[in-house]
């Protein structure tokens, strides 16, 4: 069985003269928690809608589990569960009825199974209440319960924590992590929240102005390119002058009670050695590089 669960091939969406998604090639592997990052309007939702056949690509194709969406939409989508943007339900129906009506499209679903899913997302006690009485967070959890009913192998989530309070965000993140860890579900998660992807994802891609900018493991991307550290030492003023003289230190500035240093890829071990050799006491060396700085650098670099 192929290790590639989802692949987009030169996926393109053109609206008149505007290219919303431009020849996008992505690969999501089995077991990935794949973060799909980009600023608002980057083309994330358009890509997800094309993957789910809600909108039709102008060019290119999507393969799921090795099956082309153009050629065999049904079998491609049979193992997929998705929540696109804000979950929308039939507000006049109860959660139970909604799951029966929406979850039963591919085949009958027993009440017992529906209740088990509602139990898992913490909504069992509100199962008979109309969905119109639900909060946004409860709707998100109901959306997750719905997609799990059909036991998907790939779950696609479009900005799943948007509009949630911090507690709700945490709960949804834990549910997603639980899906990947306990059920072995592959997750494709779009977000503009960088820390969210950093917290959850194992691999990621960044899209900007409809084009793929980078794709790889979160760990690799975080350590790629220049590093950034906050140095704590016993003599900051002297260390500042010392560091300015080292060619691999591209930027050196005082930041609070430490020194912020921008370094090349292999800079941290070498820097530590040089500081110690020069007689400085290194009290702390705190990596400053986050996905946010990486993302912003990347986006700014393309503007």
């Amino acid at each position, binding site marked *: 069985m192929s290790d590639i669960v989802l692949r987009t091939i030169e996926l393109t969406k053109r609206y008149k003269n505007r290219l919303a998604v431009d020849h996008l090639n992505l690969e999501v592997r089995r077991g990935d928690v794949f973060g799909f990052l980009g600023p608002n309007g980057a083309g994330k939702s358009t890509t997800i*809608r094309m993957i*789910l*056949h*809600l*909108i*039709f690509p102008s060019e290119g194709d999507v393969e799921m589990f090795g099956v082309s969406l153009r050629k065999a*939409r*049904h*079998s491609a*989508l*049979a193992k*997929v569960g*998705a*929540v*696109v*943007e*804000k*979950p*929308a*339900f*039939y*507000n*006049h*129906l109860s959660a139970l*009825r909604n799951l*029966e*009506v*929406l979850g*039963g*499209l*591919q085949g*009958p679903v027993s009440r017992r199974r529906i209740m088990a899913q509602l139990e898992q997302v913490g909504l069992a006690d509100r199962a008979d209440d109309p969905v119109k009485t639900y909060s946004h967070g409860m709707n998100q959890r109901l*959306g997750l319960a*719905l997609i799990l009913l*059909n036991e998907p192998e790939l779950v696609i989530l479009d900005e799943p924590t948007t509009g949630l309070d911090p507690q709700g965000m945490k709960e949804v993140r834990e549910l997603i992590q639980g899906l990947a860890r306990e059920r072995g579900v592959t997750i494709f998660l779009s977000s503009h929240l960088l820390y969210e992807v950093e917290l959850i994802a194992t691999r990621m891609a960044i899209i900007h102005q409809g084009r793929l900018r980078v794709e790889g493991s979160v760990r690799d991307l975080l350590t790629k390119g220049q590093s950034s550290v906050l140095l704590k030492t016993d003599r900051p003023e002297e260390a500042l002058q010392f560091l300015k003289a080292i060619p691999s230190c591209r930027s050196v500035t005082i930041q609070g009670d430490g020194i912020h240093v921008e370094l090349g890829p292999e800079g941290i071990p070498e820097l530590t050695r040089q500081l110690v050799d020069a007689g400085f006491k290194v009290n702390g060396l705190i990596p400053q590089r986050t996905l946010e700085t990486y993302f912003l650098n990347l986006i700014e670099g393309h503007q």
Partner: protein
Amino acid sequence: MLRLIRFELIKTFTRWRTYIGFLAFGMIVPLVVAGLKLGGKYSFERHLLSVLQNDFVIGGNVLNGWFFGLFFMGALWVHIPIVLTIVAGDKIAGEGNAGTFRFLLTHAVSRTRIITAKFIVTLIYTALIVLFIGGLTLGLSLWAFGSGDLLIIRKGILVIPEARLPEHFLMAYALATLAMFVVSSLSFLFSALTDNSIGPIIATMAVIIVSIIIISLPFELFQAIRPYLFVNYFDVWQKVFDDPIPWGVIRSQVIILAGFILAFFLAAVIYFSRKDILS
């Protein structure tokens, strides 16, 4: 498919909007029957006698329940489309507007099957509302004004014996239902074209009103396009009260109405199958 239809029935008949038509006619029809019973019947009587008394001797209960049942059918057929469009026009657009297509269409079920299930439920609703209105008007009229032979003044005078009236009315309701299926189908098509539930209601009513104006005006140009307008065949139900019943005309008009229904449905399927869901 049966499961999809069942789900559509659940969604449709658990909504308040579905019952607006039943409630509206459920209130209006008894009021009108009460008004006729409390004096309105006499103005009918005066009008009828002024037309007929010079040539005929009228005896028995002429202004009976069957007479008013027929009168209501003739009077209400232009109003029924309004309530039909409330449900039919919302069938696809409502899902788009609510965003529920984002769940509904991401399953391994074809859009054609989903649309077909929606269309079947729209036709079920249409049949129910026509039969409800027919049953209510006829039932209340018979209760209030009693039974008897039916006097029809259309292309001359015709009297249909009481014993044959149930079958005539059943045929008339079936044909009226078919005519209303065309309205629902058109509204359904408009519903596929938009994500706004109000648009299909306005568009359908606009088409019906403009078409009625066209077929009513005696201009040559308008008369030439008359056969292409579905409202031209809306009175097919009245033909079962002719003597002899023009079965050939009824058959051809039924085929034309069925053609309109099929055309509107297929157009909705084709458009929706290629539609980008952006809501």
